[in-house]
């Protein structure tokens, strides 16, 4: 079966990417001037704790900092695979538990955003291509340009301001403070829904803009192809034939857009989350980098990359299933 062979190939590829990414993540831990332990100890000393020489050596040894880079990497990766990502100095907790706390919100936001991007950009792209140079097409292009030109953090600031001034919604986060530790209730759900639009808009704008352009360009390309004329000559209704043939063919680049859309999505999500104070992995990475909490930083990069790779694998497999040229070779 060609399909199964293809999927296995992609899975192996995914593992390889993961190795590369883990190496990159570990490099980030290692690169800062002086190792992170010195800055940790400096911090401890600042807060009044005495660290004697002996315990320092012991600490160095326990983190394996006295060993060569490749050995350190190997140990770190081995532990990572078994779910041990080290200790966060900032949170004085295990890195994996800090990340797991924030995983649900990250997944929820990313998944909703992805859905919104596709639901908006596909119909708008089809409309723009079919009514090329119409007022609607022009507006869509204009919005597209704006979406690409406005930096995410600026959009977040502006929307936050509008939400606050216009709708009186409290700034930041995914829920109002009074619901923080409450059990799930109707009021809490409504409050949550109220907080969702701003981050979703900030995260999706750039991706939607890019995808509308892709959809429009591919569909315009497909509309000029011979098989569309054939379908027209067959006496099919215009709307029927366009949805059956060119739109179907134009869906391929959309499905494979996962390749660049997902990293873009997590980028946007990181920015939005930092400015809006969302409980996701992005701000965690930001805080970790500013505070030189390198195990946490590496863990965050790894998790974001793993999510991306899983997304890519899914989009590859969906593409293989839908496109007979890939499925049947």
């Amino acid at each position, binding site marked *: 079966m060609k399909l199964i062979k293809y999927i296995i190939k992609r899975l192996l590829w995914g593992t390889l990417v993961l190795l590369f990414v883990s190496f990159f993540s570990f490099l980030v831990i290692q690169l800062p001037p002086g190792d992170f332990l010195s800055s940790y100890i400096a911090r401890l000393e600042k807060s009044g704790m005495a660290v004697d020489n002996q315990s320092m050596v012991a600490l160095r040894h326990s983190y394996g900092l006295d060993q060569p880079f490749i050995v350190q990497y190997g140990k770190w990766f081995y532990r990572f695979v078994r779910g041990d990502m080290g200790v966060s100095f900032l949170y004085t907790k295990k890195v994996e538990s800090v990340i797991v706390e924030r995983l649900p919100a990250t997944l929820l936001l990313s998944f909703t955003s992805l859905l919104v991007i596709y639901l908006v950009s596909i119909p708008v792209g089809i409309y723009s291509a079919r009514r090329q140079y119409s007022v609607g097409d022009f507006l869509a292009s204009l919005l597209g340009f704006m979406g690409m030109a406005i930096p995410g953090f600026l959009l977040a600031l502006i929307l936050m301001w509008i939400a606050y001034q216009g709708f009186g919604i409290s700034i930041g986060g995914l829920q109002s403070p009074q619901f923080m530790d409450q059990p799930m209730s109707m009021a809490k759900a409504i409050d949550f829904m109220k907080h969702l639009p701003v981050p979703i808009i900030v995260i999706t704008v750039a991706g939607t803009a890019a995808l509308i352009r892709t959809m429009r360009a591919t569909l315009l390309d497909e509309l000029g192809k011979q098989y569309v004329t054939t379908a027209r000559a067959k*006496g099919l209704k215009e709307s029927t034939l366009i949805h059956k*043939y060119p739109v179907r063919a134009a869906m391929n680049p959309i499905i494979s857009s996962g390749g660049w859309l997902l990293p873009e999505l997590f980028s946007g999500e990181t920015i939005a989350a930092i400015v809006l104070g969302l409980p996701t992995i992005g701000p965690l990475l930001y805080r970790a980098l500013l505070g030189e909490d390198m195990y946490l930083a590496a863990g965050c990069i790894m998790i974001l990359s793993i999510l991306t790779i899983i997304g890519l694998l899914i989009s590859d497999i969906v593409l293989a299933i839908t496109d*007979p040229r890939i499925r049947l070779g």
Partner: protein
Amino acid sequence: MTTENNLLEVKDLKVEFKLRQGTVTAVNGVSFQLKKGKVLGVVGESGSGKSVTARTLLRIEAPGIITSGGINFFSPKHGELAIQKLNTTGELIRSIRWKEIAMIFQEPMTSFGPMHTFGNQISEVLILHEKVNKADALQMVVESLRSVGMPRPEKVINQYPHQISGGQRQRAMIAMALACNPEMLIADEPTTALDVSTEAQILEVLAERQKTLNTAILYISHNLGVVSNIADEVMVMYLGQIVEHAPVDDLFRAPKHPYTAALLNSIPRIDKAYEGQKLEVLSGGIPDPYNHPTGCKFHPRCPKVIKGVCDKIQPLQYAVSETWSVACHLYSTSINSEK
């Protein structure tokens, strides 16, 4: 010429393309008739307007615009129809398309959509026009594919375009074109993209099916040799106009228009009589589409050009015989008598 048995009458058809750089008149006053069950060949270089003419018959000429002239089609179901007046996306023209006038396109690579099986794409026309259910339609597709000599048609209906060769794809195209048993078939250079031996096979299939089903064919090609094999009559087009229209044998025996003669002379011959002769080549190229020459459009390249006449006055269609007409001043009685 008699109008009896006419299936299609095209009168003074003019199709223009309005582009940013200017207006291109792709079809410039074309008139002809096609009789039931006959094959009319259309020959010309690329850019002569033969494909646009063909597309206009199905009203898929967009972005071209019909600026004047008419197309009368004698539909067995709807009676006499003025095709040029129909709405290009309307129900009437859609019921004519494929059911009564089908078309085969030049590019077998891209004529079928890449994402659907042959079964799906061919049965589509049967379900649409013959109102049969899906299972029956698929059975008819298998029969249709078999009738054009497609090997293992049961398998092909589940295959995708990228899985079979260009020649086989063109067979599938013929099967699809003839599936609804149309009155008329437009074949727009169906063999141009194929190699010579495949071309011969495809032509044979087409000719055989044409005879069995008695379908009228408008056969478009830039290859005079191919047309001579299949057509009853031939018309030669140059820059959107018909320069000569004649029964195929007459045309090949004694071409009247200098352009036709030049086209015939550019075909390599291996007859004894031509041994040692140089192949004649037409001088010059096709003129700029935005600026056609005045008078006879062929005069800048014509070896028999009459100065002061050909570059000023556009020639009319002069009847040489009852079935033969030429658009050339050499055959105008007035000029000949002046000489």
